[in-house]
C-alpha cells in the first residue's frame, strides 16, 4: 500500500488515558480487523492507571492484569506516549488536528466529599488521598499521615472501603510483602490502630462489596471482624432483595456476614485489631480542635419498595471517638477542555459513547469509555465490555470519519518535539519497570516504585 492510500484508509485513533479502559478500547479496535493506528496518551510516564495506582498494593494477583495490557501495548498498531497531559502540555485542538477519533478514558480521579462540617480537620481524608499515597502515586506524595491513633472510621460500603480498612488493619510485616513504597511503609509501621469501623448509611443488602474482598477481611490473622447481628434481621423489602435470584453477590455476601455476626459478642482478643462493619449510620459531622477527635452519625432506617428503598435518618446521634476518618463514598470526574459533563458524577455527556457538545449535538469523532462514560461502578472486567460498546459505535462511524485526512502519531510527535516535551515510550516504561522490580528484589517486595515523575525519568 502506498503512503497516501494508507493515509486515506487507516483510521487514526488517540486514546486519552492508559488505564484498563484505554487499553481495552485499543484491543477492541485491533480485534475488529480494521486498518488502524492507535496512540495511547498518558499523563504519567507509566501506563496502567488504576491497575498500578488503584488496585490495592497487597492484591498482586489482580495486578497481573498488567500482563494482558502489555500484550496490547506491544501490538504493532499501538504506540504508548507517557508524560503527555491533555490540558497541560497538549490541548484538544492539537490532538484533533492529527486524529479522526479521540476516545476519553481518563477515569475519575476526584473523591466526592460528604459535604459535612469538620471535613477540613486534620485526620479526615478522602479515600483517594490514602490510596494514592500508599500506592506511590506521584500526585499524592506530599500528603502527611499519622496513624498513631486508637480508632479509625472508614465511611462507605464498597471494595475501596474494604481495601482501606484492610491496609489500616494488616500487620506491618504482612504489608512489607506488598508493593507499598518504603517511605509509606515507614510511616505505616508506626500505626497503633486497635479499632477500624467500616460504616455505611444503609444495610447489609445494599452494601457494594464483592464476596472475595469481604471474605478476605475475615482471613487476616491479626484481626477480628464483627458486625451487630441485629442488622441481619431484614425488613420485608430487604428480604425480597436478598431472595432475588439475580442478586447472587448479595446472597454470597450475606452468608459471609452471618459468620461475622457470630464474632459480635465474642471476647475480644486484645492483641487483635477489631474491624467492625457498622450499618445504618449517616455521617453528620466531625469534631475536634484542629485534629479530629470524634465522628458523629445519625441512625437511619430504610423505607420504600424493594430495590428502591431510601434512607431516612432517625434523631439518634451516635458518637464514635476516632483520630482518623476516610471517606469513601464515590468518585467524580474532572472538568476537561470544557467538555460537557453530567453533574454530580461528571461523566462526559454522551449518547452511545459518542460525546455530546454544548449545543446538544453529537461531536463527530469524540467518544468515551470506562468510568468517565458510565460512572465509577463495576470491576476491572466491566471496562472490557464497556470498551467494546464504545468501539462498536466508532466502527459504525468509521466510513464517515475516514473522509477526513489525519496524520496521526507522526503529526502529534512533531508537536511534542517542537514543544520539547520529554514523552516516554513503552520501551522507556519497560526500563522503569525493570528497575522497580530489581529494586524490590532486595527488599523482598514485588517492586519498589518510583514515587516521583523525576525519579522515573531519571532512570532513562
Amino acid at each position, binding site marked *: 500500500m502506498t503512503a497516501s492510500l494508507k493515509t486515506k484508509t487507516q483510521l487514526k485513533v488517540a486514546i486519552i488515558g492508559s488505564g484498563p479502559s484505554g487499553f481495552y478500547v485499543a484491543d477492541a479496535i485491533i480485534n475488529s480487523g480494521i486498518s488502524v493506528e492507535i496512540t495511547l496518551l498518558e499523563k504519567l510516564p507509566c501506563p496502567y492507571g488504576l491497575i498500578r495506582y488503584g488496585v490495592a498494593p497487597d492484591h498482586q494477583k489482580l495486578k497481573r492484569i498488567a500482563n494482558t495490557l502489555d500484550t496490547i501495548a506491544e501490538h504493532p498498531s499501538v504506540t504508548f506516549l507517557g508524560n503527555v497531559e491533555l490540558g497541560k502540555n497538549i490541548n484538544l485542538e492539537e490532538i484533533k488536528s492529527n486524529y479522526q477519533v479521540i476516545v476519553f478514558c481518563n477515569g475519575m480521579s476526584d473523591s466526592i466529599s460528604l459535604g459535612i462540617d469538620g471535613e477540613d480537620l486534620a485526620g479526615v481524608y478522602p479515600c483517594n488521598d490514602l490510596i494514592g499515597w500508599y500506592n506511590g502515586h506521584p500526585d499524592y506524595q506530599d500528603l502527611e499521615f499519622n496513624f498513631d491513633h486508637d480508632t479509625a472510621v472508614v465511611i462507605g460500603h464498597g471494595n475501596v472501603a474494604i481495601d482501606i480498612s484492610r491496609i489500616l488493619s494488616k500487620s506491618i510485616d504482612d504489608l512489607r510483602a506488598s508493593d507499598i513504597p518504603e517511605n509509606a511503609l515507614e510511616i505505616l509501621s508506626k500505626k497503633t490502630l486497635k479499632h477500624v469501623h467500616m460504616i455505611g448509611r444503609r444495610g447489609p443488602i445494599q452494601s457494594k462489596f464483592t*464476596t472475595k474482598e469481604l471474605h478476605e477481611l475475615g482471613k487476616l490473622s491479626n484481626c477480628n471482624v464483627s458486625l451487630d447481628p441485629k442488622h441481619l434481621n431484614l425488613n420485608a423489602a430487604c428480604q425480597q432483595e436478598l431472595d432475588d435470584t439475580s442478586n447472587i453477590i448479595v446472597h454470597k455476601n450475606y452468608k459471609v456476614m452471618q459468620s461475622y455476626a457470630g464474632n459480635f459478642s465474642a471476647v475480644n482478643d486484645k492483641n487483635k485489631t477489631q474491624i467492625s462493619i457498622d450499618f445504618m449510620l449517616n455521617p453528620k459531622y466531625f469534631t475536634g480542635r484542629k485534629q479530629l477527635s470524634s465522628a458523629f452519625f445519625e441512625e437511619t432506617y430504610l423505607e420504600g419498595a424493594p430495590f428502591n428503598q431510601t434512607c431516612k435518618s432517625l434523631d439518634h446521634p451516635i458518637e464514635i471517638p476516632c483520630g482518623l476518618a476516610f471517606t469513601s463514598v464515590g468518585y467524580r470526574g474532572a472538568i476537561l477542555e470544557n467538555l460537557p459533563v453530567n453533574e454530580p458524577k461528571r461523566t462526559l455527556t454522551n449518547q452511545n459513547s459518542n460525546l455530546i457538545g454544548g449545543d446538544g449535538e453529537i461531536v463527530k469523532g469524540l467518544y468515551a469509555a470506562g468510568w468517565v462514560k458510565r460512572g465509577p461502578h463495576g470491576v476491572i*472486567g466491566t471496562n472490557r465490555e464497556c470498551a467494546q460498546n464504545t468501539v462498536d459505535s466508532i466502527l459504525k462511524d468509521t466510513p464517515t470519519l475516514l473522509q477526513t485526512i489525519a496524520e496521526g502519531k507522526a503529526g502529534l510527535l512533531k508537536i511534542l518535539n517542537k514543544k520539547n516535551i520529554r514523552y516516554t515510550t513503552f520501551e522507556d516504561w519497560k526500563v522503569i519497570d525493570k528497575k522497580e522490580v530489581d529494586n524490590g528484589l532486595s527488599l523482598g517486595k514485588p517492586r519498589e516504585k518510583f514515587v516521583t515523575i523525576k525519579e522515573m525519568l531519571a532512570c532513562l
Partner: protein
Amino acid sequence: MTTLVTDNCQRCRFTECVTACPVSAFHAGEDMLFINPDVCVDCGACIPKCPVQAIYEDLDLPDELEEWIDINERRAKKLPIITKKESAYEGAEDRKKTLGF
C-alpha cells in the same frame, strides 16, 4: 484461590461471562466453557454475568462441585480462548428455567 465454571453451563453456554474477563481466561469447549486457572486473576467480574450461576470462587464452592476445579484446569488448556459472546445453545432459556433462574 481459584474461579471456575461448573455444570450449570452445560447445554446453556450463554457466554455473557467472556465479555467481562479482563485477561481472556475463558476457553470454549463444545459442551461448556472453562477457566484457565493460570491466567485468571480472580477478579470476579464474570460471576454476576452468568444467568445460571455456573461460576464459583472456590471459597463458596459447594462440596459436590469440587471436582470441577480439576476439570477446568485440565480442559481449559486444551481448548481455544473465547473472548466474544456467542449465541446460547438452542433450548438454553428452557434449561435456565429448569435450573430455577
